């Protein structure tokens, strides 16, 4: 069965340089797909193309298709604003808005038309609960989001992404700037969230990929070298370079 979220012969160019080469990948619902590979292998570029973040880079062009719920997201009639509502994204560096904790979460839903105060309160609470942050911040919702620790800020960013009820969550090394305790919190959170979402995560941490993902895709020089069940890839990779990379001998 084909997933509702997949890429088909996707290539991404920066000018003439082909950063991502002809990649077809499926992202099954309610599962975590990890993208691994050495720096510069195109995995972040690939991830950014999934919610059209590369639109911001003027020389970036795309060939091939990205399908989300039967829609080619690069088709000219696509409403990017509606599209991005369906796809949450969290980056390596926590980037809360320079606003209160409450406003960080309520901002998106408010913009998308929810004006009712009690409804907003509910969204803020449920998003923060889903991101396992509610108990730590419920008494200081009016304070600046920048007063939180790095790990809390990152969970706030996850809560913010969840506030508009996306079906897909894109994570670009979400734990690589965090301490071990915060990292394990974020990992638990990802495992929890996949019950509702399809998650794609870029990570440099092999143990993390092994711990939290169901499927793993290994990228090298813009090419998809190997893709399959995480367990298989980590125990019995087909490709020799995959073997070398995950065992840490290269990369």
């Amino acid at each position, binding site marked *: 069965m084909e997933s509702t979220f997949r890429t088909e012969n996707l290539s991404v160019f920066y000018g003439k340089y082909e950063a991502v080469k002809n990649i077809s990948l499926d992202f099954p619902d309610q599962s975590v797909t990890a993208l691994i590979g050495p720096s510069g292998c195109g995995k972040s570029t690939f991830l950014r193309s999934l919610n059209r973040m590369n639109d911001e880079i003027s020389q970036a062009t795309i060939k091939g298709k990205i399908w989300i719920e039967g829609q080619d997201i690069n088709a000219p009639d696509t409403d990017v604003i509606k599209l991005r509502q369906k796809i949450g994204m969290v980056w390596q560096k926590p*980037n809360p808005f320079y*606003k209160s904790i409450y406003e960080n979460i309520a*901002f998106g839903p408010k*913009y998308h038309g929810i004006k009712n105060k009690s409804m907003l309160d509910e969204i803020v609470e449920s998003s923060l609960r889903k991101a396992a942050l509610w108990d730590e911040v419920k008494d200081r919702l009016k*304070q600046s989001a920048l007063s939180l620790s790095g790990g809390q800020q990152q969970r706030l*960013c996850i809560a913010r992404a969840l506030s508009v009820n996306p079906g897909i969550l894109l994570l670009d090394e979400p734990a690589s700037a965090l301490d071990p305790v915060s990292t394990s919190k974020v990992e638990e959170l990802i495992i929890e969230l996949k019950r509702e979402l399809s998650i794609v995560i870029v990570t440099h941490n092999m143990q993390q990929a092994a711990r939290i993902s169901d499927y793993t895709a290994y990228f090298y020089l813009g090419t998809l070298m190997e893709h399959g069940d995480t367990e298989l890839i980590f125990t019995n990779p087909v490709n020799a370079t995959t073997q070398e990379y995950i065992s840490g001998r290269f990369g």
Partner: protein
Amino acid sequence: MKAKTIDKIATTIIVVFSLLIVAVLVGLLAFILVRGLSHVNWSFLTSVPQTIKAGGGIGPQLFNSLFLLVLTLIITIPLGLGAGIYMAEYAKPGRFTDAVRLVVEVLSSFPSIVVGLFGLLLIVNTFGFGFSLFSGALVLTIFNLPLIVRITEQAFRSVPKEQKEAGLALGLSKWKIITSVLFPVAIPSIVTGTVLASGRVFGEAAALLFTAGMSTPRLDFSDWNPLSPTSPINPFRPAETLAVHIWKINSEGLAPDAAEIAAGASAVLVILVLIFNLFARWFGNVLYKALTASKRTG
């Protein structure tokens, strides 16, 4: 020479230079204030100038300076913010943006007397606005626009790009991101730019001689109809500002106490600039805190 010795010498030189600058500033301020403040009192601040008698004040000029500032900012801030935001967020790099940037920088380096004459020919005569606050405000806009455009552009560019990406990923429109995500973060820098621009409004004399004029009609402070010729808030009346007044009485003042009046007016001008600085910074902080829920000062 050992690296440590070189380091010591360099540090000493830098400290001496810094102290020198502070000393010049303090000396200048002290000189102006000591010379001028003894002459400043309530009636000096509120009464009208005298042509040949002693005891004239600077009331209308003080009011004119403040009113001209307000008028100028009303024109400059929307234009400057708009152009700055365009340059930072919309303009694609290329010949056109390079040309805009060049024009903006050339504008800011024009000699003010030349711009004043240009204002006289075009705004005062051709457009027929006459010697008026409005003409003066337009000419000051020519000076201030470049500064505000550049500072706005830089303020928006220096907001971390992750902020913008976060907004995009939430499905916000570009305009919403600019107004609600980037602008609050950019406020402190924009306020600094506005303060710098305002300093120029208070201090400019040459360009105003030919545009706002060197005289003030007898003002009736109970008349608040902006179209009445004697109303203080009529933007189309001539208005001598404090800086122009200082220049005028210093060069052609006939009153026996002209020197004291010039000194007093200078002290008032300096204090005015200081007060405005502090006020603008305070206002910027309040705005920043309100929009970002932050306790820190920008």
